C-alpha cells in the first residue's frame, strides 16, 4: 500500500488571464500542464510539479503562480509535514532519500552575523570610481627562497601559481551533472573574466580543451575521464577528497543523465549509475595523499598547481594542516551548504560544518603553525553574494568558489531536483530538447554580468574600508564584527563583537 502524499506546492492558474496557448505544457518536462480539449482549458497536476518556475517565467500572460500548499497534518513542532512525508516515502519505497543542491535547513548563516567596517575621519575611504582598486591576485604556494642571479636580481623561485582578475572562481560541476551548454557558458565566462571554472569529476568534453588555460580539472575517487591529455590541458589540477554537500561519500550521477556524450567524456558505460567510491582507494592516509599530489605533479612536469578539495568537517584544521604539508598548492574547503547534483538527503542535511567556522579555524591553524604561505585557501558552499566574498577574504580566504550562484545566473530556480535529470532550464539535464533551452551565448554573458557586478560591489566595500588591494583584505579580521554570536562563535571566527573598538 502506498500512502498518498499531497504535494508541497500547488500550481495556481488565473483563468481570466490564461489564453490556453499551451506554452506551459511544452515547457514542462515533468508534464504538469495539459490541455483539456473538452473544456478548452489548461489543467495542472501539482503532484508532478517540482516548483522550478519555468512555466511561471514563460507564461506570456503571467497567469501562473506556485504557492505553498495550505494542506497540513495536525500541527506538531516535532513532527512537521516534511518529516512525516519522508517517513511515508521511505515506507512506500524502502529507498534512501535523494536530494539536490545545498542543505536548505534553517541552521544559522554566519555570513549574516558578521558586519564589515568602513573608514571615517582618521583615514580616508577610497573611491573605486576614481582610484585604482585591485582585485587581482595569485593563487598558490607563496613561500619561496630568496635567490639572486649574478647581477643581484631576484630569481623567480616561486612554484606555479594561478592568476585571477577577480577573487571568484566557478566551482566544480561535472559534465553529466550539468549540461554541455552550461559547461560552455562557464568556460567562456571564466575566459572573459580572467578566472577559472572547474570540470568537476566528469572529465572534459573534447570541445572544451580550447578553454584549458581557464580550466581546473578534477581528479576524484572515480577517476572519470582522467588521462594524460586531460591533465595536460588544464591550468591546475584539483584532487577531490570530499564535497560539502556529501562529506564522506563519493559523487552520484544517476544513469538517466549518462548520455552517449557523457559516457565518452567520462569513459564509462552509457545509462548506468556512476557512483564514485567514498574514498580514493589509493588514499587511506595523509601520506598517501602526498603520493597522489606528487604523481600528478610528476605527470605534468611541476608546471601546474595542485588543489586539494575537502569537505568542511569537525577536524578540519588538523586535516588542512596535513594537506598543507603534503605538497598541495591550494586547499579548497567546501562548507555543508554546498550544492550538488545528487546526494542522500540525510547526509546533505546533517553532515559537515559551516564554511565560515571551518575557514576561520583553518586560516588560524595554518598561521599558528607558520605554514599559511605554503598554501592558498579557496572556500565555497555557500557564497551567496559579494558581501559573503568580502567576509570570507577578511576571515582569511584567498578567493571563493561559487556554484549555486552561478547556476542561478544561468536560470536555475533552486527546485532541488537535479537528480531527476529533467531540468526545465537546460542546466542539470542531458536531454537534448531541454539542453538547447540554455543558450551559451546568453548564459556566459549572464555569468560575466554576475561576477562583474559582484566585483564592483567588492571594490566599493574595499574602498569604504580604505583598502585598495584585495591582498590587504585577506585575513584582515579587524574589518569584521560579530552580531548575535556567542563567545565560542566569536572565538572561533577570531572577530570582536559589534561595538567593541579596535
Amino acid at each position: 500500500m502506498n500512502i498518498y502524499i499531497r504535494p508541497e506546492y500547488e500550481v495556481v492558474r488565473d483563468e481570466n488571464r490564461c489564453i490556453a496557448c499551451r506554452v506551459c505544457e511544452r515547457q514542462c518536462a515533468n508534464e504538469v500542464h495539459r490541455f483539456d480539449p473538452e473544456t478548452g482549458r489548461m489543467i495542472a497536476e501539482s503532484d508532478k510539479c517540482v516548483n522550478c518556475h519555468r512555466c511561471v517565467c514563460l507564461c506570456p500572460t503571467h497567469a501562473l503562480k506556485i504557492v505553498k500548499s495550505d494542506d497540513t497534518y495536525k500541527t506538531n513542532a516535532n513532527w512537521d509535514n516534511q518529516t512525516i512525508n519522508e517517513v511515508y516515502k521511505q515506507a512506500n519505497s524502502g529507498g534512501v532519500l535523494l536530494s539536490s543542491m545545498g542543505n536548505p535547513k534553517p541552521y544559522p548563516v554566519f555570513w549574516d552575523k558578521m558586519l564589515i567596517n568602513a573608514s571615517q575621519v582618521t583615514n580616508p575611504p577610497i573611491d573605486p570610481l576614481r582610484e585604482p582598486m585591485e582585485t587581482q591576485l595569485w593563487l598558490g604556494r607563496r613561500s619561496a627562497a630568496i635567490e639572486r642571479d649574478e647581477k643581484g636580481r631576484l630569481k623567480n623561485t616561486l612554484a606555479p601559481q594561478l592568476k585571477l582578475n577577480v577573487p571568484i572562481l566557478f566551482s566544480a560541476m561535472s559534465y553529466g551533472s550539468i549540461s554541455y551548454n552550461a559547461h560552455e557558458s562557464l568556460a567562456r565566462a571564466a575566459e572573459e573574466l580572467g578566472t577559472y571554472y572547474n570540470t568537476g569529476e566528469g572529465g572534459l568534453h573534447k570541445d572544451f580543451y580550447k578553454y584549458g588555460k581557464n580550466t581546473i580539472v578534477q581528479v576524484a575517487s572515480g577517476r572519470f575521464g582522467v588521462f594524460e591529455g586531460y591533465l595536460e590541458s588544464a591550468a591546475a589540477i584539483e584532487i577531490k577528497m570530499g564535497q560539502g554537500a556529501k562529506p564522506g561519500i563519493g559523487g552520484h550521477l544517476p544513469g538517466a543523465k549518462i548520455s552517449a556524450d557523457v559516457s565518452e567524456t567520462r569513459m564509462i558505460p552509457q545509462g548506468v549509475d556512476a557512483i564514485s567510491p567514498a574514498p580514493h582507494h589509493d588514499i587511506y592516509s595523509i601520506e598517501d595523499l602526498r603520493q597522489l599530489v606528487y604523481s600528478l605533479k610528476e605527470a605534468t612536469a611541476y608546471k601546474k598547481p595542485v588543489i586539494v578539495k575537502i569537505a568542511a568537517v569537525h577536524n578540519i584544521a588538523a586535516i588542512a594542516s596535513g594537506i598543507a604539508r603534503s605538497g598541495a598548492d591550494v586547499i579548497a574547503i567546501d562548507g555543508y551548504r554546498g550544492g550538488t547534483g545528487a546526494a542522500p538527503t540525510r547526509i546533505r542535511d546533517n553532515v559537515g560544518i559551516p564554511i565560515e567556522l571551518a575557514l576561520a579555524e583553518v586560516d588560524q591553524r595554518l598561521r599558528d603553525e607558520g605554514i599559511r604561505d605554503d598554501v592558498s585557501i579557496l572556500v565555497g558552499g555557500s557564497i551567496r553574494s559579494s558581501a559573503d566574498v568580502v567576509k570570507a577574504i577578511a576571515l582569511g580566504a584567498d578567493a571563493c568558489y561559487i556554484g549555486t550562484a552561478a547556476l542561478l545566473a544561468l536560470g536555475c530556480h533552486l527546485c532541488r531536483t537535479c537528480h531527476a535529470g529533467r531540468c526545465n532550464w537546460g542546466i542539470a539535464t542531458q536531454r537534448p530538447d531541454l539542453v538547447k533551452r540554455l543558450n551559451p551565448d546568453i548564459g556566459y554573458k549572464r555569468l560575466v554580468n554576475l561576477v562583474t557586478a559582484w566585483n564592483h560591489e567588492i571594490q566599493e566595500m574595499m574602498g569604504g574600508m580604505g583598502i585598495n588591494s584585495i591582498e590587504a583584505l585577506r585575513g584582515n579580521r579587524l574589518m569584521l564584527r560579530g552580531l548575535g554570536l556567542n563567545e565560542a562563535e566569536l572565538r572561533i571566527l577570531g572577530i570582536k563583537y559589534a561595538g567593541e573598538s579596535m
Partner: protein
Amino acid sequence: MLLREGQFRNPSGCAVTGVIDRSGKGMTGEGMIEAISVMHDRSNGLGGGYAGYGIYPHYKDFYAFHLFYETRAAKEQTEAFIARHFEIVYSSEIQTRRIPTVTDEPEIFRYFLAPLPRKLANSHLDEREYVARCVIRVNSEIDGAYVFSSGKNMGIFKGVGFPEDIGRFYRLEEYEGYAWTCHGRYPTNTPGWWGGAHPFGLLDFSVVHNGEISSYDANRRYIEMFGYRCTLQTDTEVITYIIDYLVRKRGLTLSETAHVIAASFWTTIGQKDAAAREQETLLRRMFPSLLVTGPFSIILGYEGGLMALGDRLKLRSTVCAERGDIAYIASEESAIRRIAPDLDRVWSPAGGEPVVFELYGKEGRAQ
C-alpha cells in the same frame, strides 16, 4: 577603566621629521626639537619621541638597551633576565630634566650590552636574532618592563607629552648624532603610556610613522607567523617588524622592501620596462600579505641612513630637501624651513617612491 596601549588598537595622526648629515658630522638633538615644534598642531600632547644615530661613539660595539620600568619588581626581573643573556658593560639611569608638562614618567634606564658568548653559541642563532628575541621576550613576558631601544650606537627617547617637551626632558641638546628622526603623536585615544609613544625600534631599525593603515590586521597576522609579537597593536610596530623581516631576515634591499610595502599598482607595474616589471611582479607575488594600504608616511632610521616612504596613493604628505651634505625629511616643508631656511632642493616624493639618504661611502648597507 581605560585600557593600556597594546590592549587595544590605537590609530593616530602625527607629525614626523628626520635629518641626516651624510658626511657623518654630528648634530645635537636641538634641531629636531626646533623643527617639530613648528608642527605643534599635528600632535596633541599624548606622545613624542626621537631616534638619534651615532650618539654612543664610546660604546658603539654594544647594544644600547633603553628601558621603561613601572615597578621595582619589573626592574629586578628584567635585570635578572638581562644578566642571564648579556654581559652588562655599563648601566645607569638616563639623565632627564624636570619639565612641568611632562608627568608620570616611569623609571628610565640604559644598559650597554654584549651577548654572553656561550649563551649565544648554544642558541644557534645569529647575534642580531638572539638580541631581537631577547627584546621580544622582555616586552611580551615581563609585566611593567619595556625595552624601547635596542640598537648599536643609536638610541630612542620618547614619552607622553608634546615632542618638544619630551626632547628637553631627555636633554637631547647634550647628544650628538649624524642622523635624527622625530615624532609628534596625535592618538585618537588617551592611554598615556610611555611605551606607546614613537619612534618604535628593534635593533638599529627605528620607525616614525604618520597615518592609519587599513591593512593592519592582515599584516599583523602574517608577520606574527615569523616570531614577532605585536604587543602594542600600533601601525608603527607592525611596519617595523615588516621591515626587519624583509631586510634582516630575508635579505631584501630597501628598495625591494619598498616595492613590497608600498607596491605599485598592477597597472603601473605593467607599464614599466621588462626588468622592473619582472622584479616588482615577483615581489608582489611572494609577499602579498605585507602590502600596506591606507595612509602612511614613514621615516625609517638605520645604521648609516634614513629612508622616507609614503603609501602608494600618497594619502599623507612627505617633503624631502637637501642643503649641502644635510638631507631633510618632514611631514611639512615648514618644519624643514624652520631649521634650514635656504635649501638647494625641495621636493615631494611620489606615493610609494622610497627616498634613501645614506652616509657617504656606506650606501646600501642596511641589513
